């Protein structure tokens, strides 16, 4: 008896033990784990789609802590904020506009983290894609090209705003490889050029690519932009020449049509961040941050064109400055397309008009964000040839843009005059497209332009939308920096900073 029970127990225990490892193996059923992903062409197609995602957050985020427009436009002399003494949860935005930003600023962090999110997702793809069989090798090249383009675009954004940054080129696996030392900006640029060069060879041209994805032209434009920043005019010219000569791009006939919902990814578009009206989570909301608040429901309806709008009583940001309004030449068709004004409290305030598109639900629009347009390619081309001492060659490019705006051409001017004309043209043609600040930095004029701007704001605060008796703090505009500090949260975690 004793033996029998002993044997039975032993068998029972043995059975339980051998199956217990299976019993204890319970991977998640409601999501995929990495071990079973990145196996098929479809996995990589999904992975590249997700790599575009952070661009929406980067360009769309609003409120006090802002997306790309905070550091790209609000910092510059193109736009300012409309001070509201009754709504003061605005320090991040005001300190950006007034040049006393600290490293705890949310806007700095939004730019940093979204770019690195793109980089990490691209790195996942690039680390594994070569080992996986695709049904179609053209798809593999395309996916790989997009990943390289997006990684280069992200690093280019980082290096222009922060200078030296950590350079991650392979996926992070744990705590050890999460924090890297800063890589000098020059080396980051080398990597960007390598990536974008490879992307140019892998990516299809615009007409062969699904609308909205990165194309060979997108990569060429990015490379040209890098050359412009490096003042490598000849290389910029040759890159732009193949872009212009590709036959894939042209200006739309009317400036107003550029931002029309029906012209998303149009022939003028080189790269756009994609948005879609609706509640699926892809809507663009950024124009809503740029109303001259406080605004009543009726005023919002007037601005947005949506009848059942709600009042908003916070603070308006990205309000066009009197300086910008001044810089439109008489007869420039772009002024009324770009800017409108509204009487909110007995005074008319300007606001950005060009991104308002018809939509039905308040707060949800579908307008895309133009990262690169053909108009800018033409202005880059004009600049590249002018800087090589050929102001005459620049004329056809700048005048193509001016003609569409209803302005007379510029002819027979010297290099310096042409240089100024190109900068002025960029300012109004690309107003509110996050180009102005980087142009000031790139051309070495940020210090002078922004100091003078600050003096004007401080001298006449009411011209810059302050109520009577208010003005920017004393510390404003006293230290015009060209690079932003790395986010405090990151500095805390990365011992190399």
């Amino acid at each position, binding site marked *: 008896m004793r033996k029998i029970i*002993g044997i039975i127990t032993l068998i029972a225990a043995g059975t339980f033990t051998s199956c217990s490892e299976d019993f204890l193996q319970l991977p998640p059923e409601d999501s995929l*784990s990495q071990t079973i992903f990145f196996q098929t062409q479809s996995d990589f197609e999904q992975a590249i789609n997700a790599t*575009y995602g952070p661009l929406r957050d980067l360009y769309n985020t609003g409120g006090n802590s802002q997306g790309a427009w905070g550091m790209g436009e609000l910092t510059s002399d193109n736009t300012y904020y409309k001070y509201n003494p009754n709504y003061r949860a605005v320090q991040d935005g005001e300190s950006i506009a007034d040049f006393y930003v600290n490293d705890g600023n949310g806007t700095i962090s939004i730019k940093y983290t979204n770019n690195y999110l793109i980089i990490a997702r691209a790195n996942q793809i690039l680390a594994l894609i070569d080992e996986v069989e695709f049904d179609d090798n053209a798809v593999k090249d395309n996916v790989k090209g997009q990943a390289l383009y997006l990684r280069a675009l992200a690093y280019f954004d980082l290096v222009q705003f922060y200078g030296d940054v950590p350079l991650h080129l392979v996926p992070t696996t744990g*705590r050890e490889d999460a*924090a890297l030392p800063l890589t000098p900006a020059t080396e980051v640029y080398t990597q960007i050029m390598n990536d974008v060069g490879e992307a140019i060879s892998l990516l299809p041209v615009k007409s062969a690519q699904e609308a909205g994805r990165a194309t060979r032209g997108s990569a060429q434009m990015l490379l040209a932009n890098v050359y412009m920043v490096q003042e490598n005019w000849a290389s910029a010219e040759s890159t732009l020449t193949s872009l212009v000569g590709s036959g894939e791009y042209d200006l739309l006939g009317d400036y107003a049509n550029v931002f029309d919902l029906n012209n998303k990814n149009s022939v003028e578009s080189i790269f756009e961040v994609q948005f879609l009206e609706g*509640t699926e989570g892809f809507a663009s909301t950024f124009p809503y941050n740029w109303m001259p608040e406080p605004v009543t429901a009726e005023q919002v309806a007037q601005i947005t064109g949506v009848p059942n709008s709600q009042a908003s009583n916070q603070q308006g940001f990205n309000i066009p400055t009197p300086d910008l309004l001044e810089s439109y030449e008489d007869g420039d068709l772009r002024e009324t397309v770009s800017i409108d004004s509204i009487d909110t409290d007995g005074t008319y305030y300007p606001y950005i008009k060009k991104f308002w598109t018809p939509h039905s639900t308040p707060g949800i629009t579908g307008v895309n964000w133009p990262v690169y347009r053909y108009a800018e390619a033409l202005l880059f081309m004009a600049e590249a040839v002018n800087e090589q001492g050929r102001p005459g060659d620049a004329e056809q490019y700048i005048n193509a843009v001016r003609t569409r705006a209803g302005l007379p051409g510029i002819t027979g001017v010297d290099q310096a005059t042409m240089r100024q004309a190109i900068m002025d043209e960029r300012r109004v043609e690309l107003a509110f497209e996050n180009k102005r600040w980087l142009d000031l930095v790139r051309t070495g004029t940020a210090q002078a332009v922004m100091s003078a701007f600050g003096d004007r704001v401080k001298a006449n605060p009411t011209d810059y939308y302050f109520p009577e008796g208010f003005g920017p*703090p004393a510390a404003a505009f006293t230290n015009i920096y060209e690079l932003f500090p790395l986010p405090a949260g990151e500095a805390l*975690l990365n011992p190399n900073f």
Partner: protein
Amino acid sequence: MKTKQTLWLMVLLCTVLCGFTANAQQRITVRGTVSDAETGQPLPGVTVLEQGTTNGTSADFDGNYSIEVNSNAVLTFSSVGYAAQNISVNGRSQINISMAIDSQQLDEVVIVGYGTQTSRKVTGAVQQIDSEELADIPVPQVTQKLQGRLVGVQINQTTGKPGQGIQVRVRGQASILAGSDPLYVVDGFPIVGDISSINPDEIESISVLKDAASTSLYGSRAANGVVLITTKSGKTEQGGFSISYYGGVQAVPQKGRPDLMNGTEFAQFKKESFEDLGLPVPEPFQNPEQYGEGYNWYDAMFRTAPIQSLNINWNARGERSSVAIVAGVFNQEGVMVNSDFKRYSLRANSSFKLNDQLNLGVSVAPTYSIDNLPSSDGAFYATNVNAGIPGGLVTNAMQTWPILPYQNEDGSLPLTAWIPGISAFPTPNWYRAAKEITNETKSLRVLGNVFLEYQPIEGLRLKTSINGDFGNSSFFNFSPSTSSTTFAALPPAIPTSIRRESKYLSWLNENTVTYAKSFGDHNFELLGGMSFQKYEADNSQLFLSNFPDDRVRTIQSALNIDRTRSFNNINEWSLTSFFSRLNYDYKGKYLVTFALRRDGSSRFGSNNRWGNFPSVSAGWVFSDESFLENTDWLTFGKVRASYGIIGNNNIGNYTQYALVDNSLNAVFGNSISSGAAVTTLGNSNLGWEKTKQIDLGLDLRFFDDRVEFIYDYYKKNTTDLLFNVNIPQESGFTNFNDNVGELEFWGHEFAIVSRNIAKENFTWNTNFNIAFNRNKVVSLAEGVDRIFAGGGYAAITRPGEPLGQFWGLIHDGVYDNQQEFDSSPKAVESQVGTIKFQDVNGDGVITYGNENDDRTVIGNPFPDYIFGLTNDFRFGNWDASVVISGSVGNDIAVTNDQGTTNLDGVFNVLRDVKDRWRSPENPGSGRYGKTTGATFMERDWFSSRFIEDGSYLTVKNISLGYSFPVKETSFLKKARLYASVQQAFVLTGYRGVNPEISTTTQGQQSNALALGYDWGAYPVPRTYTLGFNLSF
């Protein structure tokens, strides 16, 4: 790994086989008489048990008994109030015995893990409470009834939401990310979650296991302490039937309600703000007196509400079976409008003696509850989790302008509470929103158990059981057009609805072997066992929006399903365990226990799947030694010591895996394409949190056991903390789950139980307990020197300090005048008349939010000590009791002040904001700066201005009862009427209504890193009840 497991099986087998070494014995019948040692009178009802078996009988009315036992059996004689005795039969057929009075629970049976022990032999730290002591407390949760009763166990009611919000922490237990709640074991079954759904009337006793030796048999789930719940079983021989009922009313006490500006004061405040700005005063504020008192929005949210409870108990025990049935109905309306909680419960426990060797037990306990709980808690910008529907209703009501009505004179409810062009934020009528939002949860939970127990030979018991815990709950929210969130658009809003369905099943199969044997004065008891448990849950949510109106609330009437807020989660875990224990004692004087559990869990990384949890404990009953035999004043003395390693496996079901999120879709042109990316990093080394605990204890009884004293010292070191280590976002990830760091907990616990007066007609018992719990961070992750929690209002956790210290600036008044301004350190945005802080880092400027700014530790949410005091009186047929619990030395961060002292005039504010700085000549109290500049520093920069002393003494319950004299032979056995006041009053310097408050901004229960925040919560009401108990 394999060898370890094999070894383990050997141990188990030995345990099993040992049982069979004993040979079958000859059965004989033993008879005798039991008498009282003092009086010599026969003692009826004494229980006679054959040790190590369930074979037993009881003495008849004349003290005679008869029992068939093995010839070498040991008989245990026990009776309430008498010292139990163990007598070896040694072949005798006649054993007469006299029982000595043993005044107290000295030999009370204590429920411990996987069995029972007499309290004399307990070598761990265990405290048991019988539910009878808790009967008069009119609350729905048993843990709530335990407030003030348990030494070293902090039980806080963090919110007054009916049926919610009780936080139980054993010995200051805290984890950074894994849970800190104890493991609840109901009749041997470790259940899912807590016991809030269980009707307290079903419970017979509660045993709290605190030290590692007591808990180590629960292995990887034991580190937070274990609460053993034993439910009622058929206990009386003749069976009985009883009814208990109470009913009463609840109301929010006046003391503790926020002292806000009334209509006139608020309009005056606004008027002055505009004057100070030099702006014209808008029309609504030009004549403040017109508003008088205005509208008290806080008071509007609350009401006097009824509470009722009815329980019916029936139990019976026959020759071969016993059964107990408890049926209960509980119905509580909340003191906040549109809140209530109802529970219908039933429990049937039965056991059957199939033959002399086989016992079968079956129990089933369904509970159905319905609650409707508003999103009352949290900051004014809180939203109901996972959904853009309003939260923080209490705070929002407080902040609404008192010059605006929540109800029109004709009784109708306005839609909004704002003045177009004047109010800063679109404000709905929060009172109306609270009344009209539906937040209903209907839950069914069924606990079930079947066991079979086999006693092949004397002393050996084989038991197998199957337990099930099944839950199904449906949550339905409807946010009508009249509701809105703070900062969102003004109503009418687009109606939305959430439908959430959750179901889970947890099952356990457990197989144990116990064997008890004595060799002379050497007593052994062995336990071996294995168990398998699996949990499966499926939760799904639909978020519906764009209903055409508020009337039809079905899915098909919604125009839109919001995919981003709709989901389906599947959660599973499994646990395989082996465990064993050896109890040994010599003469009941020298006691030793060894225990070992081995757990394998699906939650642990594949490289770290199995863990061992051993413990050892010893005790010495020194009062039994000859040198103390004649000491009259000391009746009992025992020292105890234990050491063990236990685990905390609340690390998430899938934390070890690198997860791919396949909902990261993208738009290209006008079409949506699916996207996926790795969003969390995996860690295949991930394991449980490990706690090593030492406990040293001393139990003393004096003066014929009139006074009992219990002391415990403990020290726990928790290592391998589950920690979501923040990593720089340059990696593309925000954190990495790892086992890192070390926390240390230690403390002293004292309990005194005194029977001050023990006369026949008058008794007075006092029970006092006090515990000094401390914690300290020994280390965090490598390269991590601090962790912030609590959002912008930060709590900091650093090595060398306790967890979650409040971290902010030191408030130093206001810059009263230009001279003070010029001579003081200041921030970039500071002005004369704005808030002034101390320059802690001494760099001459005030900075906030960067690494070396002027923030420092400004408060500690942990108390210096917690205590409880219970006094019970009985005089004739009257009885009374007073229960007190308290906490001393903890701070509360009244972050709610972010809104209620907001100087921008966007909200209603506390009355004392009147005394703010207005000019150098009129500098105010120094607490608040001016309304016209840099107000964000006062509002958003966390400072000592928000910190208050949270010490309190709460009289939790006062009750008074009268038992009607009933004839012994009457149909009615007992009739008692009582009155009770719950949350009678609170003595505290803290200004709010509930000093036990602690929530996150979203109104959720906060973790150990961010305790003590008052973001506003449902207040804890005072409850007056009348009740009766009838037994038949």
